[in-house]
């Protein structure tokens, strides 16, 4: 029994569908075929409206049908073309309806990039281990750069993007362009020379930039010399290499990584409209501050003035004035009293004086006798017989001649005359 040829054993035939499904299950369960890189040249490229991409990968002796579903197709970094040598990654399966096995591609790179990528990883690990990418090495970007150095291709769109952005955001700056190839064999040397040139021109900041491209296009920015120059730059560096999704070692070494050249220019500068706003705010604050100050000073002044008024010497003067007035009044009063008293006294004196007036005595019959030369005669010794004398009476004078002189009896003189 066991030696009988197989075809003689009765067995139900498989349908084509069953067979293809069976094959598909076998293929899909294979470890190698599930995750495979295949290198070949693109041919029979077809990109129908569905968005899926179909082509054949060939080498000199064989070919392989390939599919890139729409969902993966839009993530491709470069456009595909017949004749391109690529490395495609995906899984092998069977298209049951066509009975064909094919490569279902989820990512794709230009041939050689695989090796480049390995080199990228090796260099990244090495420089990382040296500490070249350490976060604490990163320096802050000056907020108002006066002089911005740019290392890039003088003819690239990256430069135009950067200049337009700088012009729009911060035209106060001065830009120094250090032209350098950003692709090809000479690029690393020229980029390093550009950096060194800028270091001697005292720039505040350096942008290292390039537009997007394949890993190979951007390779100069993974050059060890370039990366070391960027890491060792005495001036802060912003990198803007490739597109959003591209990472180069220069990005890791730079102080700041921008997703694009335009992004680098934006990170490098403040926005002039924001600056104008800030300035306006300062001007407003300045105005209200001086106003507040002046109002405060006016209030203080008023307060002090009020206090000054309270303590004014005018008040002192007024109160002094009152004293003076009071004293003056008292003085006037005193004067009046004094005058009245004086007048009274004067009356008395005058009465007494009148009483003493010798002329008044004459009215009562007394006479005043004087010599011719008008000396008062009060004693007999003052005259001689026949001497002429003047006699003053109450209403006039007479002149008489002394006929005789007779001294008084002593007793008579003793009795004397009263007034």
């Amino acid at each position, binding site marked *: 029994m066991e030696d009988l040829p197989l075809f003689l054993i009765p067995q139900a035939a498989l349908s084509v569908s069953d067979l293809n499904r069976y094959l598909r299950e076998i293929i899909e369960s294979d470890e190698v075929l599930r995750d495979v890189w295949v290198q070949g040249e693109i041919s029979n490229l077809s990109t129908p409206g569905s968005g899926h991409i179909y082509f054949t990968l060939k080498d000199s002796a064989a070919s392989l049908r390939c599919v890139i579903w729409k969902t993966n197709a839009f993530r491709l970094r470069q456009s595909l073309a017949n004749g391109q040598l690529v490395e495609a990654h995906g899984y092998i399966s069977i298209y049951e309806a066509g009975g064909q096995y094919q490569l279902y591609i989820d990512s794709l790179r230009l041939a050689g990039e695989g090796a480049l990528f390995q080199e990228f990883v090796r260099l990244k690990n090495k420089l990382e281990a040296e500490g070249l990418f350490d976060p604490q090495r990163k320096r802050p970007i000056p907020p*108002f750069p*006066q002089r911005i150095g740019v290392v890039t291709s003088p003819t690239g769109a990256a430069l135009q993007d950067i200049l337009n952005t700088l012009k729009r955001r911060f035209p106060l700056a001065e830009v*120094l*362009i250090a032209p350098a190839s950003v692709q090809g064999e000479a690029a690393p040397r020229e980029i390093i020379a550009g950096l060194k040139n800028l270091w*001697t021109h005292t720039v505040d900041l350096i942008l290292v930039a390039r537009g997007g491209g394949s890993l190979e296009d951007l390779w100069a920015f993974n050059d060890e010399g370039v990366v070391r120059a960027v890491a060792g730059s005495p001036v802060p560096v912003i990198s803007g290499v490739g597109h959003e999704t591209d990472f180069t070692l220069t990005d890791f070494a730079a102080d700041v990584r921008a997703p694009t050249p335009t992004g680098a220019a934006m990170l490098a500068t403040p926005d002039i409209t924001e*600056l104008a706003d800030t300035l306006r705010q300062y001007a407003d604050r*300045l105005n209200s501050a001086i106003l507040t100050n002046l109002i405060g000073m006016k209030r203080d002044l008023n307060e002090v003035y009020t206090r000054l008024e309270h303590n004014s010497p005018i008040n002192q003067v007024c109160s002094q004035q009152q004293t003076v007035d009071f004293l003056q009044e008292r003085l006037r009063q005193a004067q009046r009293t004094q005058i009245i008293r004086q007048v009274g006294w004067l009356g008395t004196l005058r009465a007494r004086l009148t009483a003493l007036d010798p002329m008044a005595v004459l009215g009562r019959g007394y006479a005043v006798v004087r010599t011719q030369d008008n000396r008062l005669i009060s004693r007999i010794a003052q005259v001689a017989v026949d001497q002429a004398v003047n006699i003053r009476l109450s209403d006039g004078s007479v002149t008489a001649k002394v006929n005789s002189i007779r001294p008084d009896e002593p007793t008579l003189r003793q009795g004397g005359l009263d007034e």
Partner: protein
Amino acid sequence: MSKKKDQEIDNLLYEQCLEELEQVVTTLENSQPSLEEAMALFERGQALAKRASSLLEQAELRVQVITGQGELTPTNEE
């Protein structure tokens, strides 16, 4: 404000203007200067703001290229 001071302000960079303006405003806001000082600060602040804003208005990006010999050549970027 003296002529010398005006000249000095004309030489200030935008950043310097802004920095000093900030100081002036803060001083004016937070301390109680004398009238003379306050007016001087205010005038200085105004001059600084004027200088900074004219810098913003008149600014025109200057672009130069470094030649292989390390010399600078202006470009006509228009």
